């Protein structure tokens, strides 16, 4: 078939760099994977059971386009109680098919052809592609390990043009685990107000914040009106496969997104919505338990990486460590590929998430304690062998 059948936009975007790694790792036996971007918990039984009940009761029809009102009401309560943000269940929320669809809706609702979105990188692989698909232009802003891969207003200013429409924030961040503090968000908020920009904030990992309470940019004074909040049940509630997310935004933006949603998706799957309602009603204790478990594993894993010489800032959120591998002299891809082939540990090369991720790897510590400890000793062996090889020529000389 001729390639010219394809839209130019689709041809212009690249398939996700993670895919290549997945294909390689999937062919091997005995691989310990630190490459998984999802919780290692199975969804809590009460949540699964609620979904099964909905099927037994024959609740299999379409729901309202925006999602079950009862779910939106629970969600509204939850957002207020948990993060002090007040969204009307009737006018400001849409239940979506994962956070990814919510992102897609946000970009499509606000972007005209050529509008620019400033995206600090390294970042989740979908932002740029979705911006492009919506006709916009992703403008990547590089960030550095020295500043925990966070952007501030001065950084953002360097990318500001008359075409800038929005800033994308992801906190806690995939892949770096960094979390913006209230003060840092206030600085960015001030910048957004000054230049009349929207903020799209991806808060899918908000429940998994460990050291200080999470602040949403939507909770900062006067910011709700220019913020599109994206989140979902995947990470905090361990519900990735259910594909259930949501978007919260002021009515004008929300109505625009709802138009797209009703024509392209109709509504999120009903059985997942009933599950989510149960998760919000009776699942927060489980969230707390999982969070504690991640925090312990983070302390162990990040502490050990630093001891191995793979320096890493303490990630305050999500379940990723993003250590530097620069001391090995390898590129991220080389490191990840050699580690996989020689020690069967799968990590994701940092450059997949943007050029600033080069020299780093993403390791998910959402893995059993045994696996984490085994992978650490394999990484240690890998590093020692590399060191021996590197030092060998020096001895000859």
């Amino acid at each position, binding site marked *: 078939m001729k390639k010219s059948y394809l839209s130019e936009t689709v041809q212009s975007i690249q398939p*996700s760099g*993670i895919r290549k*790694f*997945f294909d390689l*790792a*999937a062919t091997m036996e005995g*691989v310990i*994977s630190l*490459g*998984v*971007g*999802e919780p*290692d918990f199975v969804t809590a039984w009460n949540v699964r059971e609620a979904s099964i009940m909905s099927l037994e009761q024959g609740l299999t029809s379409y729901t309202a386009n925006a999602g079950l009102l009862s779910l939106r009401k629970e969600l509204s309560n939850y957002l207020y109680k948990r993060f002090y943000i007040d969204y009307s269940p009737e006018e400001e929320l849409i239940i979506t098919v994962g956070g990814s669809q919510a992102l897609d809706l946000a970009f499509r609702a606000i972007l005209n052809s050529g509008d620019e979105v400033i995206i600090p990188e390294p970042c*989740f*692989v*979908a932002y740029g592609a979705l911006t492009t698909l919506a006709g916009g232009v992703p403008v990547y802003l590089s960030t550095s390990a020295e500043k925990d891969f966070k952007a501030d207003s001065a950084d953002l200013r360097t990318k500001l043009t008359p075409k800038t429409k929005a800033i994308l924030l992801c906190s806690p961040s*995939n892949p770096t685990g960094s979390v913006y503090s209230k003060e840092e968000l206030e600085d960015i908020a001030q910048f957004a107000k000054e230049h009349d920009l929207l903020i799209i904030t991806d808060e899918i990992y908000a429940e998994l914040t460990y050291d200080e309470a999470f602040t949403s940019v939507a909770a900062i004074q006067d910011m709700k009106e220019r913020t599109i909040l994206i989140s979902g049940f995947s990470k905090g509630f361990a519900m990735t496969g259910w594909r259930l997310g949501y978007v919260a935004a002021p009515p004008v933006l929300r109505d625009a997104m709802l138009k797209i949603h009703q024509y392209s998706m109709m509504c999120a799957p009903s059985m997942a919505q009933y599950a989510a309602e149960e998760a919000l009603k009776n699942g927060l204790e489980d969230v707390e338990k999982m969070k*504690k478990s991640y925090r*312990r*594993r983070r*302390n*162990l894993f990040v*502490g*050990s990486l630093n001891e191995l010489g793979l320096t890493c800032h303490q990630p305050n959120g999500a379940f990723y460590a993003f250590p530097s591998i620069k001391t090995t002299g390898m590129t991220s891809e080389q490191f990840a590929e050699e580690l996989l082939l020689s020690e069967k540990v*799968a990590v*994701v090369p940092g450059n997949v998430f943007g050029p600033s991720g080069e020299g780093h790897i993403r390791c998910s510590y959402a*893995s*059993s*304690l045994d696996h984490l*400890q085994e992978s650490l000793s394999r990484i240690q062996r890998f590093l020692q062998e590399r060191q021996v090889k590197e030092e060998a020529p020096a001895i000859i000389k």
Partner: protein
Amino acid sequence: MKLTEKETEILEILDENSRADLNTIAKMAGVTTEEAEAIIQKLEDQKVIIDYSTMIDWRKVDGHEGVTAMIDVKVTPKRGVGFDEIAERIYRFQEVESVYLMSGVYDLSVVIRGRSMSDIARFVSEKLSTLDSVVSTTTHFILKRYKHDGKVFETGDDDKRIVVSP
């Protein structure tokens, strides 16, 4: 007894895996190994940590399958010592695994492990029923253990996630 956050943290780590080594425990809780060691010592001294035991599925071991029964025991409490004296007389028997004082229609719940049903029958008829304070006993044999102390006995809990995902 009021415990500090770190003490509770260490208890929870041990509760999940009593074999975790000191270094791992210390790192997970964010304390030095010396601190972790001191905390564990203190908790052991105060009998907050009673013991470190292993959960074994003996059914899988030939010759060790055994039988477990839960016995509801009605007793007459004694003035001055209440149920404690009779409870002690019961828990001193080696074959008794646990004894609980219960609310409801009977008083003591006794869990006992023996090699066979007749072992347990002998214990109940010869040792337990003959105690002065014991009014009646009802013996329930455990047929199958599905979940014990929060652990499911037969599970396929292998990782079902795809190897690499965004």
